[in-house]
């Protein structure tokens, strides 16, 4: 019958109109600056650098291997390798980034840097309120602005962070065991068996 669809449509919009005063299902707007919803776990915006411990400069996991810099499709990462070395989490002497800049106006949030990083040092952040009135300097984040503690990473991506932590703990245990075995072997070599010799 002609006009039936119009009446059905009018009924639906009337239901929406009246329902918006009673049910949250019919008024889905979140009034953003005042009301916020927590970002989803899978959300990703721009990368950040993870550090362990409380001192960001000493705890940065990054060893300035520059894989991310080379892999970055829009080339928004700039790394300067340090001249000296310092011990990393496993106690091995490593280089560290003297400079680590990300131009977030160029970054396309592809997550490739986070995927290629062999040290779990660079991860994706969920912060999105990065507006600034300085479009050149303000969007060029240096390592002090990029550094976030591991606790923050656990907070924004709990499942992923737990896996990373387990992996790193395993590595650490393996390294410790190896070091222990090596130390034992070295000790054994240094002190020959008592009954040996002639």
């Amino acid at each position, binding site marked *: *019958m*002609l006009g039936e669809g119009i009446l059905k449509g009018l009924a639906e919009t009337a239901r929406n109109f009246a329902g918006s005063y009673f049910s949250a299902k019919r*008024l889905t707007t979140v009034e953003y600056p005042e009301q916020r919803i927590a970002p989803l776990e899978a959300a990703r915006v721009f990368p950040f650098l993870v550090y362990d411990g409380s001192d960001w400069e000493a705890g940065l996991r990054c060893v300035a291997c520059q894989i991310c810099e080379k892999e970055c499709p829009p080339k928004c990462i700039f790394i300067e390798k340090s001249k000296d070395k310092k011990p990393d989490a496993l106690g091995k002497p490593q280089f560290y980034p003297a400079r680590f800049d990300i131009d977030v106006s160029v970054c396309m949030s592809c997550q490739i840097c986070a995927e290629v990083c062999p040290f779990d040092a660079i991860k994706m952040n969920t912060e999105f309120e990065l507006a600034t009135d300085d479009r050149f300097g303000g969007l060029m984040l240096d390592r002090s602005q990029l550094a976030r503690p591991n606790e923050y990473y656990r907070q924004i991506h709990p499942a992923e962070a737990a896996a990373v932590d387990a992996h790193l703990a395993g590595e650490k245990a393996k390294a410790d065991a190896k070091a222990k075995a090596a130390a034992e072997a070295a000790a054994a070599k240094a002190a020959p068996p008592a009954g040996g010799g002639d």
Partner: protein
Amino acid sequence: MTGTLDQIFVLLQHWLVGFLPAGLQPVAAVLLSVVVIVCFFPALFAFAVWLERKGLGRMQNRLGPNRVGPFGLLQPIADGIKSLTKEDVVPLSADAAVHFLAPLVLVVAVFMGFAVLPMGRNMVLVDMDAGLLFFFAMGASTELSVFMAGWSSRNKYSLLGAMRAVAQMISYEVVLVLSSVAVVMIAGSLSLTRIVEAQNHYSGIFPHWYIFTPWGFAGFIMYAIAATAETNRSPFDLPEGESELVAGYHTEYSGFKFALFFLGEYLAMFSISGLGTTLFLGGWSAPFSFLGWVPSWIWFFSKLMLSIFVFIWLRGTLPRLRQDQLMNFAWKFVLPFTLLNLLVTALWRFMGEGWERWVVCSAILAVAYVALARLEMFKGHFGPRRYRYAE
């Protein structure tokens, strides 16, 4: 007391005019009413824009404007200040004089329509014997301004929008006038005050509004369709279809000239709703006899706002038509049905009092509606589009 409240604006006008010398009084009385109309309806326009944005928002599960003032009520003022302070851009190749005149012609023509609308008992600016005719003459001249705007802009979108607008307005103008003719046939007068008087009777508590008769109901539906098309409102907003034509005939208007077009569109909506109220909904008469103590102007404006809400409701519901659907609908469905309605009205007039005319008139209209709709559906003028090759 109720009489005083009912006539409060009339008494106020007499009191104010009484301070002037007798020779000036008639002119002053008219000028005063004009000033009130020219101030009141733009204020109502601001409120209607707010209402529309809020209502549409609610229909789309949004809140609508809520930042400027309580409930966003000051939003229209902010918009007004914005459009006043914006640059007035006139294209280099535009016909500057016509380009400048178009919005003025629109607003003036639309304001003229309010002159003959009875907004309450004794509240009509000019009580013309042919008020309805005057109203339609003024309503039709808005087409001129739309075409002036489209033609003088020298812009293909403007011109296409104006062409569409003129085609649409002329097609639906016919329906608009013919659906009103039914009322004139029964009321026997072109004077809008007399048409309201003719409906201001009650059987028991129920009023004799024309919408409560078979021909009046059908006529009102046809009038509402034509009025929606005439004011370029959704779903008939092809002339300014922003997805195809940027903004149609007012693409090249900015700043306050654009605001005038916007004002003109809403004023046209008010005046055409006011006329619909007058013709079919009993104008300023109360919906039940025991509510007669409420001032007549309150009834008129309540019905007006109700019609505005229906306009908003339709806009929130229906998608835009295609040009051929629009024309098919006007000439192949609405117009034949309106012509039939004229015959039914004549039948109603000559069958005399009694229940027979109710049955006969309702049956004819219902059968015609179903048959016409089926026929048009069968011929493929309505309903989903059928593609000849790409199936």
